[in-house]
């Protein structure tokens, strides 16, 4: 019997039904929105997260995902009884959902942290602040990445 496309497809179909077709799946090597949610829950637990107070300064379009400047600031008086305890930054589609956790104190003066990050794809970045009263506040930003980072080949 000649191997035609139709023959092959019927064969493949039959095998699929039998459940033995070796499907070559590429293991997704990136944080999925589900992983993002899990990573956030890992930090905030069951607490509810409100929008506001947090500001995320990051370019909306980056040409090179290998070094993206990012500043997170939180509107807080930073006094002894009302300050930002920590800032957590997450991404949606890097291989891993965490970017960084930053722990501040009541004598930080200003709740602001800057760093440079890698982005593997066009995606969402989420910043969450934990205040001294253990409330959580978040903001998200969408970033278009032209040249991806993280998974390129090493030369």
């Amino acid at each position, binding site marked *: 019997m000649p191997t035609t496309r139709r023959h092959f497809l019927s064969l493949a179909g039959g095998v699929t039904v039998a459940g033995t077709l070796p499907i070559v799946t590429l293991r997704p090597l990136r944080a999925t929105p589900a992983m993002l949610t899990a990573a956030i829950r890992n930090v905030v637990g069951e607490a509810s997260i409100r929008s506001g107070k947090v500001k995320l300064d990051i370019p909306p379009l980056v040409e090179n995902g290998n070094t993206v400047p990012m500043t997170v600031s939180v509107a807080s008086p930073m006094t002894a009884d009302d300050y930002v305890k920590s800032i957590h930054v997450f991404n949606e589609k890097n291989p891993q959902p965490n*970017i960084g956790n930053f722990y501040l104190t009541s004598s930080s003066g200003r709740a602001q942290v800057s760093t440079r990050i890698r982005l593997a794809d066009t995606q969402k970045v989420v910043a969450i602040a934990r205040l001294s009263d253990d409330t959580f506040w978040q903001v998200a930003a969408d970033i278009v990445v032209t040249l991806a980072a*993280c998974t390129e080949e090493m030369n």
Partner: protein
Amino acid sequence: MAALINVPAKARRGDIIEIRTLTSHIMETGFRHTADGKLVPRDIITSLTCRYNGTEIFRADLFPAIAANPYLSFFTIAKESGKFEFEWIGDNGYSSTASASIIIE
């Protein structure tokens, strides 16, 4: 490994000062492959701690999403003359320290 620390040499008591740090480190993500398909092992700095006269004033957990040669800037209130000590900890037993002095007027 070399680190660049930027702390104002002098400040008035109560001033909010910015501290900037830059360390040289490859920050290999552990997700890259060589051309012949081998995974390049992860090698990153996982934390930076900053102490001001012995008291921790800032700490960061870093992940592979932090760019190579990690840059971090943060703030603190200038309280008394003394020393800022920085400690970076990373994979494969990596450890590096640096310090900077400040005079409060």
